[in-house]
Every structure is written in structure tokens, then in C-alpha cells.
């Protein structure tokens, strides 16, 4: 490993030479790994090398050199340059090549994100990061370390729709648990912003019930939002955790969210004045957690729930009676609420302004249309696919040596007459 300019040029030559096919690329990769230290020390002088390389063809080499260049601390105008060059690279690089060196790729993307945030222009980073995710993923079911960064940029730049489109993919494989927590948390926030409470609930539920040996701040914050979204979407909150929640979570999460649990208790009583009082008392906590907007939505959802309950009992009801039952101040307010609910599709009703009466109607869905049949069909296919996945996973697991070892250990030793389901080599 001679450290002189000569080897740096040979580096370029190697890269250009060995970027042909996969065999050469693996060779190149080991070579580059050797040169890593060299690259770091020569980082300031590497910039001109980049011009000699074509990022779309020599992606692997370009990646290494780019990473080495950018690892040094930068000034503001250099940051802008950096952002542009990385963005350009991400757009044109070849996916198979960068997958050979994922840590390097992740490291420059993270650097990219940092700079973009520092420059106070998160929107510039959204599209490139999306491309980078798609190139890094081996399948759409894989969660990469870049996912949470992407979500963060979407949140900061308020590009919620793009975030939602990524959230549409189901995720099953994960590199790092921490990525999952952050991804689900940010994803939940995006869904809340887009008022897709069902999906938000799902994502936050995944954070809260994920296996974790100790709880993290992310889990605590997610739990708080989970409580609020559950109140808005379902009208209730089950304070008991499902069985599969980790014991650390079950023991500790409630301690950090006392004011939220108070809110739940007041909500279930059903009196709006009580809930508002509770909100007033705990206003500071809610504000410091940045949840005050969500809490306000909880309060307005109470009116909705009460009105919905009325649809079960009454066919027609006067606006005055609605106002009285739901504890609103006047029939006009009641009318406004009902109107809004009709527009959002929460209830089916008609308002007769002449008599001041509201007539509640049945859900007009008859389940007879073609769209409904298609929906059913899609649902069935989806579930079949998921079941198949489950069976495959089960089969893979039953061939796993560590699993067999554990089973083998636990079965009785001297049952020679029984049919031997586990090969004796797994017996300890």
C-alpha cells in the first residue's frame, strides 16, 4: 500500500477497468476496501478524480471516492455544491453497483440529508432520497435505514403525499429496529396530517407493540400520539396492552403519559365540559409535546361521536334536541356540526331547515355494485397472499438449525420408539 500520487491514479484506472460485470465488480470492491484509508487521507485531493469517472457506469468507484470527499467538514457554499453533486449521483447511479457497498451509500445519503436540513431547504432532498430508497431496496418489502430520513424530510417540507405513497408499501424486512420505530412514528405523523387516522393508528400500534428490551423516547412519544389518534378514530382507548407487547413497554409506557390517560377517562364519561376542563388543566403538557392540535381534534371528535350515537336511536330529531343531548350551545351550532359530518361522510342525513329537523338515513351502500365485488376480490387475493407468506415463513423457520436445536434439546431423550421428528444430531 504505497501512499503516493501514483497509486491514486492507478485507482482511477482500476475503477475504470473493473466496472464491467459482477465478477470484476466484486474484485473492485475488495480492492477499494483496501484503499479505504488511502482515500481518507487524500480526501481533499480527490475532487478532480470525480470528473474522470462516469457515475452511471463506475458507480461503485465513484461512490467510494465521493464518500471520502464528503466526509470532511464543510462550509456553507461548499454544502450547496455537495448537495447538488450527491443529488446528481443518486439520480444516475447504477443500483446493482451501489448495493455492493450499502454502508457507503447510506453514509452519503445521510450526509446529504444533514446538509439539506442545515440549508433549511428540505424539499430539495425529498426526490433524491426517494430515488435512493428505491435503488437501495432489494424489494419493496424491505425497510432501509434511509426510510426514516426520507419521512423526516417529507414532514419538514410538508410533502405529505409522497410520504403517503411510500407508506403504501407493506414492510416486512428490517435492517435495524430503530429504523422501524422512527419510520412508523414519522409515518404516523404524516398520516395524521393527511387525516388518514386508520393508517396512523396501525403504524403507531406497531411502534408501541414492537419487541423492545427497554423503552425508548420514540416509543413514549408514539404512545402519546397513539392514545390521541385512538380517541379520534375509534372513540375509545383500551388501556390494556395486547399480549404480544413487550413487558418493558407494558410496565413503563403508562408512567410517561398520565395526562393523556386522564383525558381518556374523561372522554369515556361522555361530557364535553369535563373533557375541556381536563384539556385546560393539562394544556402545558400537551403543548410541550406538540400535541395540542391533536388534542383539540379529540375534543371535536366527541361531538361527532355523540351525534353518531343519536343516529342509532332516532329517525328524526329536532336541532334543538340535538344541541341539548350533545351539549352544544345552540341549534345553529348543531346544524353546523351535522352539516360537516354529512360532508365528511360520517353520517347519512338530511337537514330540514324549515322545521329545524334532521332526518337520519340508512347507509345507502347496498353491496351490489361491481366496485364492491372488485373490492371483495382484491381483499381475498391479498389475504391469500399474506397467508402464503405466513406458511412460507413457518416452513423456513422449521428448517432453521437454531430452532431445531432448541426443539431437539427440549424433547425427551430416551423415546426411541417414537417417531423421531427431529434428527438426533440436534440433541445436546
Amino acid at each position, binding site marked *: 500500500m504505497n501512499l503516493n500520487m501514483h497509486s491514486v491514479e492507478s485507482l482511477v484506472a482500476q475503477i475504470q477497468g473493473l466496472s464491467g460485470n459482477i465478477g470484476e465488480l466484486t474484485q473492485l470492491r475488495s480492492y477499494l476496501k483496501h484503499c479505504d484509508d488511502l482515500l481518507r487521507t487524500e480526501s481533499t485531493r480527490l475532487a478532480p478524480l470525480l470528473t474522470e469517472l462516469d457515475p452511471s457506469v463506475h458507480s461503485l468507484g465513484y461512490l467510494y471516492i465521493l464518500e471520502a470527499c464528503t466526509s470532511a467538514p464543510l462550509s456553507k457554499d461548499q454544502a450547496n455544491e455537495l448537495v447538488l453533486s450527491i443529488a446528481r449521483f443518486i439520480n444516475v447511479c447504477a443500483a446493482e453497483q451501489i448495493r455492493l457497498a450499502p454502508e457507503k451509500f447510506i453514509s452519503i445519503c445521510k450526509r446529504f440529508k444533514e446538509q439539506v436540513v442545515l440549508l433549511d431547504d428540505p424539499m430539495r432532498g425529498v426526490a433524491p432520497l426517494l430515488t435512493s430508497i428505491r435503488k437501495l431496496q432489494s424489494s419493496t418489502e424491505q425497510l432501509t435505514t434511509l426510510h426514516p430520513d426520507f419521512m423526516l424530510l417529507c414532514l419538514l417540507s410538508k410533502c405529505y403525499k409522497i410520504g403517503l405513497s411510500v407508506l403504501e408499501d407493506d414492510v416486512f424486512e428490517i435492517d435495524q*429496529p430503530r429504523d422501524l420505530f422512527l419510520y412508523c412514528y414519522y409515518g404516523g405523523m404524516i398520516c395524521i396530517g393527511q387525516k388518514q387516522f386508520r393508517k396512523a393508528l396501525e403504524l403507531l400500534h*406497531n411502534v408501541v407493540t414492537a419487541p423492545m428490551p427497554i423503552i425508548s423516547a420514540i416509543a413514549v412519544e408514539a404512545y402519546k400520539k397513539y392514545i390521541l389518534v385512538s380517541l379520534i378514530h375509534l372513540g375509545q382507548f383500551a388501556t390494556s396492552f395486547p399480549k404480544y407487547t413487550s413487558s418493558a413497554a407494558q410496565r413503563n409506557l403508562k408512567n410517561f403519559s398520565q395526562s393523556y390517560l386522564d383525558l381518556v377517562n374523561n372522554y369515556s364519561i361522555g361530557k364535553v365540559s369535563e373533557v375541556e376542563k381536563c384539556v385546560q388543566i393539562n394544556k402545558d403538557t400537551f403543548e410541550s409535546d406538540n400535541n395540542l392540535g391533536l388534542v383539540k381534534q379529540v375534543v371535536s371528535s366527541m361531538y361527532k361521536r355523540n351525534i353518531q350515537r343519536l343516529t342509532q336511536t332516532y329517525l*328524526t330529531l329536532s336541532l334543538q334536541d340535538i344541541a341539548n343531548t350533545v351539549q352544544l350551545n345552540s341549534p345553529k351550532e348543531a346544524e353546523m356540526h351535522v352539516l360537516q359530518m354529512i360532508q365528511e361522510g360520517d353520517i347519512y342525513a338530511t337537514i330540514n331547515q324549515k322545521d329545524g329537523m334532521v332526518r337520519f338515513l340508512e347507509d345507502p351502500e*347496498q*353491496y351490489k355494485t361491481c366496485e364492491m365485488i372488485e373490492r371483495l376480490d382484491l381483499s381475498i387475493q391479498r389475504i391469500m397472499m399474506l397467508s402464503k407468506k405466513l406458511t412460507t415463513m413457518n416452513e423456513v423457520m422449521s428448517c432453521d438449525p437454531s430452532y431445531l*436445536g432448541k426443539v431437539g434439546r427440549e424433547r425427551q431423550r430416551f423415546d426411541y420408539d417414537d417417531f423421531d421428528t427431529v434428527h438426533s444430531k440436534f440433541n445436546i
Partner: protein
Amino acid sequence: MESEDYASGAVIGEEEIYANGRDESDPQRHRPIISSEQLDIEAYAALYTGRTKTMRLLFIADKCGIPSMELEALRMAYEEIKKGEDTQLFREIIGKINGRLGPNYALDNAWADAVDRRAESRKEKLENELNAYRTNLIKESIRMGYNDFGDFFYAHGRLGEAFKNYIRTRDYCTTSKHISHMCLNAILVSIEMGQFTHVTSYVGKAEQAVDGLDPVTIAKLRCAAGLSHLEGKKYKLAARKFLEVGPELGNNYTEIIAPQDVATYGSLCALASFDRSELKSKVIDNTNFRNFLELVPEIRELINDFYTSHYASCLEYLGNLKTNLLLDIHLHEHVETLYEQIRNKALIQYTLPFVSVDLNMMANAFNTSVTGLEKELEALITNDQIQARIDSHNKILYARHADQRNGTFQRALQTGNEFDRELRSMLLRANLIKHDYNLKGPRKY
């Protein structure tokens, strides 16, 4: 309520639709017999014997709230207790009377001391006898010895010890008659103590008798079982037990319950918990039970009214009986619940045959206001006991039958979604755990 003179094919006019439950014009119906008379304490107390008489009188004195009645009850209790040997209860009664009944009803220490001394000597005698029997190892005598002890303690108001002694006879019982005797004693003491779990278990034991029991004992056991179910708020079971009591009971169980009580408890529980067919077959058509119902004509009337849908008069009877029922020692805590259940049943039964009901007529039938009725119906609809919806504008109740087909589709789609969500979360969690496990490094095999 037939209107026999409408022209065939003509629409029934407004005036011909009779409001159910209020029929001024039919002369054949009896005017309801309102019984709001105050409970006749002497007559009431005459129905019972033994300790329960005193306890019931004390209960009435506590709960009635009318001073004259209270004093009357306490006076009778005093006289009753003087006939017995329970000095503890005696002192209690004196405390309650508090000198209000004059010098004749004051603390008679002489009497109390005499009784106590007598008790001491009797106890010694019994102990000696029992020890003698025990050394002789004659089962029958030992059994009688323990029994005597039990009786002695019971008479002196020491119920816990009485119970223990009765139980001890179990080892020395040889015939099933002995066993049933022991069980009946145990049941008596348990009811006095208020421990109804024992009652149920001993009723069970007694009923397992190998060579059948005589009808009186069977009737007694059924009463006891009914009482314990009543205490346990299992009104349907209580009703069934009381309705099975045969007329042989007569006045044989006055230490616990009078036949009027059997009729009252059985009817009220049946009314609150049976459905229409059971009510007809087990209560109205029950010839055995008819004997009991004759003793409480108001209750008989009220059951018939309920069955024939004259709800207003039925509820009127119930209202009038309420004060007296609240003075009953066993029924006291259950009166409100039973009444509520009966009223709800009446409301539900009223609406059942109709597609639409005019709330004004219904309010008339139940003798209540339309707004009050609306509130009650709202509660019943929310609890899913009536399938209907209220048209508040026109004050009509419309029956509503859920569309099964739509409901099924909706539930199917929902289940699918839930399954989808749960499965995906589970696969995610499994992957996380696998990842953690892989990190920790698999052991080499």
C-alpha cells in the same frame, strides 16, 4: 280488546282504536283493587314463628319510617323475645325501644339474669351428657347430643356455634332422614346468618338423599333454594324454584317463610325474568301455584294484567304494593331492580307486535309523559333491547329490522381488514425478533 262492530273492509276509525291498558267502557273488567293500606303488623307477624318473627319485626321497625308502626313492631318484638331465651337480642330491642313504650317495656335485668343462669346450667348438663355419649360411642346418642347443643345455641342467638354443632352431626348420621334433618337445621341457621352459599350447598346435599324425601321436606328445600337464588340476584332460577314448591308446604316452614311470601317472591321474579310463554306455562297455568296465588290476590291480578297487556293497571298494582314489599326482609334490596325489569319488559312487550307505535298512546297506556317515555325508550334502544327508531318530530316509534345481508357484507369486509392488519403486524414483529436473535448470534451445533 276486540272491537266487534266494525264494518268489514272499512278502515278502523280513530275512536275505535283502543289505547291498550285503559278501557273505561268495558263493564266486565274489575276495577283494580288498590291496596295502599298500611301493613297490618299483627297479621303479618302471625305468619311466622321462631327467630325470624323477631328479626322481621325488627326489620320493619328499622325501615318503616312511621313512628306508630315502629313502636308497634318493637312492642311485638319485645313480647316475642320474652318468650324465648335470647338475652343478647333482648338487650338490642331494649336499646331500640329506648323507653318510648313505658315502664312495662324496659330493661328487665332480673329476667335476663335468670335466663342466663338457666342457660349456663343447661349448657353444663348438655356437655356432660355429650361427653358421656362420646365415651360410649353410640352414634345415635352422639348425634342427638350435638343436635341438642345446636338447638340450645340457636335459641340463645349464638348462631355461629349452633351452625358448627349442627354440622358436627354429619359424621353420626346413619339414615337419610338424619341427613335431611341436619341439612334443614343447617339451612335454617345459615338463612338467619345471611350466608346463602351454605344454603345452596346444604340444599344440594339434602336432595341427594338415596331413599326419597317426603313432600313437605322437598317443598321446604325448594323454598330455601329459591331464597338463596333470590339473594344471589338470579331471579330466573329463584322464580323457577319458588314455582315448583308444592302446596304441601302449607304452614310447615314458618320458621323461615310463609306461603304468601312464596307467592310474592315467585311471581315477581317470574314477571321480571320469564318470557311470555314461560310465564303462561309456569305461572298462569300452574295449578299448584294457584293455591299460593289465592293468598295474594293483588299479585294474581297484576300477573294477569301483564299477560293481557293491561300495563297501566299492572304498574299501578305494583306501585301500591311497593311500600309493603320494601318492608320484607328478603325482598328489600331487590324491589327496585325487579320493578325496573318488570317495567322494561312491559315497554318491550308493548312495542313488540307493532311496526309503528304512536308515542302519545303509549304514554297514555303507561301513565307517563311523552318526553319521559322517549327517554326510557332511548335507553332501551341503546341497550339493544328494542329494535326500533324514534321519529321525534312526529312522535312515532318505528320498528327497524337490521338488514342481514348488508350487515353480513360489512362484517365480512371488516374481518378481512382486521385479519390483514393483524397478520402484517405479526409478520413484522416476527422479523424483528428474528433480527434480534440473529444479532445475538446463533449457537453452533
